[in-house]
């Protein structure tokens, strides 16, 4: 029995669960402290059960919708745009890295600008993107795409550059054609890096799509968030949004991790 206990203690998931429980306990203790000292405790740190109750309560907060319904319907629009942008940015990022690898000239010419892109506050570009696309929804997708593009492109490029000289030499001796080198060596070698890029990009795409909602007030998670912050509706809506977007961010990065292990069997431990 004791051995079994020790065995569980050795599992990685067990210590993760331990830490999550610890965080929850700290949250609850702080919530009790806050409840006893602050005037409006739910603004600062409500009890977790209060948030859960708010999620399941049928009370209407926005027209005919309950808090959860409001969050989920707005999230649907926002996340769809974020997701489209994420996919678009990921694909373009990969292709861009490939082009920069294929053309030495292009690679050298654009590399510093690739670093620069991440430093541009993309939200600032919103009006220009709007004027280019002429449609607020399209420009929201484009902004999420730009933000996802950068980490995917740099990480993939780094992956291409990580291929050792010996591997090129080997392919050279076998007189492999250029497309064979890309197909059999460079692209598979860059895949782990590509996935790292996607993992970094995912929360950025979510942030971007929520932020750009607030550019024009026509629904979406971002608008709901600013309304609830201005106390136009129950503050619990705010907490639901916070937890929901944190949840989405974590889930997406887990899903990407799962896809990665599914397509790369050599990463599974024997």
């Amino acid at each position, binding site marked *: 029995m004791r051995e079994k206990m020790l065995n569980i203690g050795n599992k990685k998931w067990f210590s993760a669960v331990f830490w999550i429980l610890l965080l929850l306990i700290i949250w609850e203790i702080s919530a009790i402290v806050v409840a006893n000292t602050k005037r409006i405790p739910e603004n600062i740190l409500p009890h977790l059960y209060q948030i859960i109750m708010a999620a399941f309560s049928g009370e209407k907060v926005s027209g005919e919708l309950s808090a959860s319904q409001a969050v989920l319907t707005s999230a649907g629009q926002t996340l769809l745009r974020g997701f489209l942008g994420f996919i678009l940015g990921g694909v373009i990022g990969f292709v861009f890295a490939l082009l920069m690898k294929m053309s030495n000239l292009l690679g050298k010419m654009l590399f510093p600008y690739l670093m620069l892109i991440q430093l541009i506050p993309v939200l600032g570009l919103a009006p220009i993107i709007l004027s280019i696309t002429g449609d607020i929804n399209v420009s929201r997708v484009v902004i999420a795409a730009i933000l996802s593009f950068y980490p995917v492109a740099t990480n993939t490029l780094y992956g291409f550059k990580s291929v050792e000289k010996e*591997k090129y*030499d080997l392919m050279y*001796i076998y*007189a492999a054609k250029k497309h064979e080198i890309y197909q059999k060596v460079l692209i598979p070698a860059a895949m782990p890096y590509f996935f790292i890029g996607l993992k970094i990009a995912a929360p950025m795409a979510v942030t971007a799509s929520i932020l750009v909602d607030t550019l024009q007030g026509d629904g979406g998670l971002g608008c709901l968030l600013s309304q609830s912050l201005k106390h136009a509706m129950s503050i619990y809506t705010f907490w639901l949004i916070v937890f929901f977007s944190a949840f989405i961010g974590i889930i997406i990065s887990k899903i990407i991790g799962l896809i990665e292990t599914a397509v790369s069997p050599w990463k599974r431990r024997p």
Partner: protein
Amino acid sequence: MSEERNIEIKTRQLGVTFKDNEGKDVAALTGVNLEIYKGEFITLLGPSGCGKTTLLRCIADLQKPSEGDVHIQGMTPKEVRLQKKFGFVFQQPVLFDWRTVKKNVELPMEIMGYSKGERSDRAMEMLEMVGLKDFANHYPNQLSGGMQQRANIARAFGLDPDILLMDEPFSALDEFTKEKLHEDLVRIWKATNKTILFVTHNIQEGVFLSDRVCVLSPHPGRLSAIVDIDIERPRPVEVKESTHFNELVTKVRNSFEGGSV
């Protein structure tokens, strides 16, 4: 042995100069004249900086000579490379993480355009030869260093290349694994009748494996002697304790120029 001595590889006044960091010319290799016979096991032996790897790379078309030339079966190295007649084994097992051992062996055959069935059969044959049959579906990171190097050798033989170039393939391995692989290599070589160019800095290894040992000396890298190894084959491990073996080792050692090594 000596009845048919077809020359397979011939270098004429081969020289390679590199530029160092200050832009000065450094001679890595000068005036190498070497004839290698078909089916021969020949070793390029020397301390680091003697240009042995550079010579191997010139033959493999991985390095352009600054002067002189290389002829292989009457062709340039490039032509031979494009006909995919080379096999190359690097010091480090250059395996592809994302491919199983078997798929790694199949890689050059994929490039050659072998059919799927042919690839698979041949890969299994090669893996059996190096004793890795049971590990065909493992990934490289699941193998020990010695097993990885075996897979690497299986891959080089898989294409059935005319010429096998080996750049210090066993230098990172332990003595036991090394001895086992020596045995395997000689057996495979005898069975397949390849020309093998073997680079090493280990005198015993060179003498034990080869028909001839080419001794290279550094600063500038040059060919200073060729020593015939007239030990009967097959050579059991015990040969290493014989007087003749040790005489040859001494002879090779004394052939180095520019001080003792």
